[in-house]
């Protein structure tokens, strides 16, 4: 078992003819992901890595029974691409990899998302992977292994670091989800935790947050009230000064003290979450709880 991605996932890649879209389509296919179509306006009838390309997402869904999409469309057009994916009935999952989508475009996408049952992961995220089954996005498949740890993180490379520490201890993952570092994202920590809580094969969840916003605090309350599956936490940005954006658009401590690492760590600990000081300590806590 796993969450969001399994053997039945049939992927359409939006922006499959671009450099990144093509490269990562090949990588996904190599990993065993069932990529069934590409969608690029004006490129219908072509093929990329043996995958048929359609002009619209709707055609790809109709012709190839795609039920998930991965978006590699450039930032200026990515908001519209997300709308198109959300409008195509039949897609259960949309994964937006694109970095740098204007926030107001995402606010409109978010508004549309509230009217649908589709899961949106991202934007500005590495995607998600069910090890040994399929990956949707740009995560390096070779570092992951199959197992019972659910992983949810705002950051790509930090996810890899934690996975590395888990793998050293022989701890595999059920599904790893990179939710992205933007201020407005689709699937947030609570959505991911809810999915892991309902998955019988996820025995422990590792959650990697960072400074900015209040998602981690809200997730902590959710864990305290609703979760039986144990959760281990990590928060990046303890040393970040207020008012400075640390790379991710969402990673900024505002002047009034909200969004600090301290408030997030306290919230998690108060709700029974073991918080690691280092990624290696996260793996240690996970091992203790399994």
């Amino acid at each position, binding site marked *: 078992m796993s969450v969001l991605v399994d053997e039945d996932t049939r992927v359409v890649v939006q922006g499959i003819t671009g450099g990144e879209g093509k490269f990562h389509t090949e990588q996904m296919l190599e990993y065993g992901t069932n990529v069934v179509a590409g969608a690029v306006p004006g490129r219908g009838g072509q093929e990329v890595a043996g995958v048929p390309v359609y002009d619209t997402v709707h055609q790809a869904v109709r012709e190839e029974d795609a039920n998930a999409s991965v978006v590699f469309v450039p930032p200026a057009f990515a908001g519209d691409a997300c709308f198109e994916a959300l409008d195509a009935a039949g897609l259960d999952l949309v994964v937006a990899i694109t970095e740098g989508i204007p926030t*107001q475009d995402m*606010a409109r996408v978010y508004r549309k998302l509230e009217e649908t049952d589709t899961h949106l992961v991202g934007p500005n995220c590495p995607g998600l992977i069910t090890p040994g089954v399929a990956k949707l996005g*740009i995560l390096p498949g070779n570092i992951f292994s199959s197992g019972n740890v659910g992983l949810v993180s*705002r950051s790509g*490379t*930090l996810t890899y670091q934690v996975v590395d520490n888990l793998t050293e201890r022989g701890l595999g993952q059920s599904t790893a989800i990179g939710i992205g570092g933007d201020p407005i994202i689709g699937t947030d920590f609570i959505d991911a935790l809810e999915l892991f809580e309902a998955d019988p094969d996820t025995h422990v969840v590792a959650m990697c947050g960072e400074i900015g916003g209040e998602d981690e605090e809200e997730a902590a309350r959710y864990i305290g009230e609703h979760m039986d599956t144990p959760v281990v936490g990590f928060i990046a940005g303890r040393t970040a000064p207020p008012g400075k954006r640390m790379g991710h658009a969402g990673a900024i401590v505002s002047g009034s003290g909200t969004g600090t*690492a301290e408030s997030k760590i306290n919230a998690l600990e108060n709700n029974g979450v073991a918080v690691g000081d280092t990624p290696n300590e996260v793996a240690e806590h996970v091992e203790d709880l399994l």
Partner: protein
Amino acid sequence: MRLHEYQAKQVFADAGVPTPASTLAETVDEAVDAAEEIGYPVAIKAQVHVGGRGKAGGIKLVDDAEEAREAADAILGMDLKGFHVSKVLVEEAVDFVNELYVGVTMDRGEGRPVAMVSTKGGVDIESVAEETPEAIAREHVDPAFGMHPFQARKAVYDAGVDREVANDVARVLTTLYQLWDDRDGADVEVNPLMITSDGDVVAADAVMNIDGDALFRQPELQEMGEEAADGDELEQKADEYGFDYVRLDGNVGIIGNGAGLVMTTLDLVDYYGGEPANFLDVGGGAKADRIANALDMVFSDDNVDSVVFNIFGGITRGDEVANGINQALEQFEEIPKPVTVRLAGTNATEGMEILNEDLVTVEHTLEDAVQRAVSYAEEEEE
């Protein structure tokens, strides 16, 4: 991206928000001429991106030419919390009876914009939000519809604004929302919005932060932003190189890939008793020349005593990174500061073989690399 006050005021004025008469000046003579033209009293205001300008001596109220000369002379060229002042705004002083706050920002928790009004203007709105949150009326806006006129009125009346000026304040709020929407605003606010004894509303300050990701469709604002660029020399250099870079106070230089991992590296430096000198994210898929530029950036910071590379390759390849580090270091007769490298992920093994261990120290785990870099920094300091 943040506009200067004078630029934001121009944008607001063009949109119909009442602003005081003002002129931008770059020399003392220009400032005095502007003051004479506007008529006393005037305020002379430093144009830098610093909060609390007034308290730091960057805003002065003057009553005659002599005072204007003195104030302009003191402010122009001053160092305001690390920012060099090269421009002042000379502005008609507004005789006010009340100060309000009006603004529009993105509520990231709700995923939609929020319009705000408070009668507690003129002070830091974040402390108002913390101490008396009920003093700020908030109205969330559905981005599919935009702000309805009733929402502006509702926010204004909920905030307790006097009925005599309520319509004018609502009009300002509506305009701010339109600007936020049309110009890809992140934060658009007036604080204070002054109410004069005649019952007029005047925007005495103006804040306009633009979403940096939307500048491709806001060419006019992008140009203003280039004009507005000021601040740390190294941060400007990082902009040219296209790095996410933040300068800090410590002496351990940090280079990594991916915001979360770089932040984590900073935290570990602190955890092991060191002090981070910077945040530098080279981004995904960095090639050799980019790695060399990153090293050049960090070596340019005189505070740096030791450098740690932490690269976890996904789309970034360890061999590319290693070649970049070798190339950058081979050009020095003597390595300026000790460099510690940790590579993991894609092609990390190849990378570690490529690295010239006469030039760098190679460590295999994140923890070891950070501890090594911290101890080098301590040795250098002694």
